[in-house]
């Protein structure tokens, strides 16, 4: 999402400075240790650093634990319908392009019941930030297999373990024609999470960010090893993507990846040997749906004038 906020380009009428606490909504009621807390903090930090006016910012979500997000941010919010956050956000952004639109979805919300919208929103490329908080499970309804649940992982709907390989959301998003920003990060790497959110916000177009998220209650073991062992992580870095030098000490698998290179992005997305975080793909030149909206060339009065002129030519 681009940063052409009025408050950044023009002198702000009220010269109020926003701090992180200005974006604090209701007390977050996620479980202790839930990765969603970390995403909330990073997001509030971004809002403060970009000085986004709460009244010009909208958080749209679906239904799920993660979708409670808008309640916890002091801004406009729409806690909507399971799977439908993206079309709601598209409606908001097309009518009010001046607003900063953030979408928060769970893996079920985005890749299951809302999958059709995910595909089309990626292609429409409307300027907004879409966060997919991926805990590999339906959390709110208490542990049912989601499309991103690892193969063999037991749940209440697949007690013998999920039989299919998990959906790879990065690979899938990269496969959609006209994708313009596709990134992955992890909530237990706050500096990386922040840098990725910032890049997503600054991107002009639809920024899709998959955030690996721990759910200690239902899928506590899935990311456990990766959290403990930085060797399992690889950071994709580039000046056009994200670079987090502060983390180089801890995460030593660093590879340079030019996010303009779609072929390389797809190859990296397919590889399962490590968890790769960073911007896989970014291309700001892709057409955006909102650009197809034309203002009428003439007002009604002008049109009547032109018509009358034409008709006068045939006066009898």
């Amino acid at each position, binding site marked *: 999402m681009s940063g052409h906020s009025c408050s950044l380009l023009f002198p702000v009428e009220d010269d109020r400075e926003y701090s992180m606490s200005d974006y604090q909504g209701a007390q977050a009621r996620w479980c202790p240790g839930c990765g969603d807390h970390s995403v909330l903090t990073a997001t509030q930090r971004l809002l403060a650093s970009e000085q986004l006016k709460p009244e010009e910012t909208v958080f749209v979500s679906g239904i799920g634990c993660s979708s409670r997000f808008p309640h916890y941010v002091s801004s406009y919010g729409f806690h909507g*319908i399971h799977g439908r956050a993206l079309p709601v956000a598209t409606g908001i952004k097309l009518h009010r392009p001046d607003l900063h639109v953030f979408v928060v979805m769970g893996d079920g919300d985005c890749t299951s019941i809302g999958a059709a919208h995910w595909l089309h929103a990626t292609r429409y490329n409307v300027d907004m930030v879409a966060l997919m908080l991926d805990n590999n499970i339906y959390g709110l309804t*208490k542990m049912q297999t989601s499309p991103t649940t690892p193969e063999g992982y037991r749940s*209440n709907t697949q007690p013998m373990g999920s039989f299919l390989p998990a959906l790879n959301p990065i690979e899938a998003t990269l496969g959609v024609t006209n994708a313009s920003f596709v990134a992955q990060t992890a909530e237990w790497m706050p500096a990386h999470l922040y840098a990725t959110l910032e890049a997503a916000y600054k991107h002009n177009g639809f920024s899709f960010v998959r955030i690996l998220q721990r759910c200690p209650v239902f899928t506590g073991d899935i990311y456990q090893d990766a959290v403990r062992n930085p060797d399992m992580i690889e950071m994709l870095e580039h000046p056009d993507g994200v670079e987090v030098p502060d983390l180089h000490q801890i995460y030593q698998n660093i590879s340079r990846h030019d996010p303009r290179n779609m072929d390389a992005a797809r190859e990296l997305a397919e590889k399962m040997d490590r968890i790769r975080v960073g911007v896989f793909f970014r291309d700001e030149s892709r057409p955006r749906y909102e650009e197809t909206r034309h203002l009428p060339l003439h007002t009604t009065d002008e049109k009547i004038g032109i018509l009358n002129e034409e008709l006068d030519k045939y006066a009898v």
Partner: protein
Amino acid sequence: MKKVMIGNHAVSWGVQRSRVEVISAYPITPQTQIVEELSDMCADGRLPARYIKVESEHSAMAACIGASAAGVRTFTATSAQGLALMHELLHWAAGGRLPIVMADVNRAMAPGWNIWTDQNDSLSQRDTGWIQLYCETNQEVFDTTVQAFRLAEQINLPVMIILDAFFLSHTSEPVDLTDQEIVDEFLPQRVAQYKLDPSDPHAFGALVRPDAYMEMRWQQQEAMRDTLRVMPEVDEAWGALTGRRYGAIEEYRTEDAELLLVTSGTITSTARHVVDARRSSGEKIGLVKIKMFRPFPTALLRSALAGADRVAVLDRNISPGHGGIFAEETRSALYDVPLEDRPTLFGYVLGLGGRDVTPSVIEAIVDRTREAEAPERQDLWVGVEL
């Protein structure tokens, strides 16, 4: 075999005993336990069915439609938003004359988000052509599930079994799980009259022109009319085997009653206590429980209610711009009762979004209905204006 179980599991056991072959569902509170128990049963072999995990309720109903058209016994369960998302396919299931059985755990519609009981979800699907059966106890839930398959397959219409969120879905009661042999005797394997069969190819769902469309609807309506006859027969056949029967409506202590309560779902149990208490102090009061809402048991209701002075209908639902839905349907059923026998009807809207309906709430309704000169309006909102 008697077991203590929640209402959701009473549905799962009914499905197990009915030897369902294909189950497809998407989780939603407060229904989820029904399908979680079923996926356990499929996994551990108690139920040799295929469990299709899908990406939404829309797909769940679509999968049931496909499987049912292929000739097998199918089941799904949902609540509120999930049921609403199925809407298009509910028409398809009924119009396609597919005997799919679904459990709906009555939950309030959003917004505002609310997971508690309220009948507006199922009643919003009133005109999709599904038979609707409302339950009062976990035993009735189990029995109705088994009966639903026989009814559906006999009449070629889909059946919705409806139970209250939490008051039934999550509340434990003893349930007599009828032995498999008895269920097998009652419910033989499905023999589909029409099905997708490569050895006898037919297509389903073709374009129907104006010259035939109306006849299709007529046949559906005839099947609904037949249901008024067949449902009590099925109930009686089950009753002969198990001793448990429910009727399309139930009349409880209605003889010589001047005031009759009309209820559905778990409010009925609470109302029974109030009726018993009032009867023991000599009041002429009774209760009519509506179990089958579609097809609407007009004639049965008419004869049950005619002659009383006053009828109070308790609706845990509202048709915005009209009134409580059971009240309005009951009112129209009474239209043909001669004026001298026609009771005055009071429609009470209460308990929306899971608000508790306690005995004292019903006591107050009884007193008010007795004392009021006439209803002030067609819908009287208990706890809001009264």
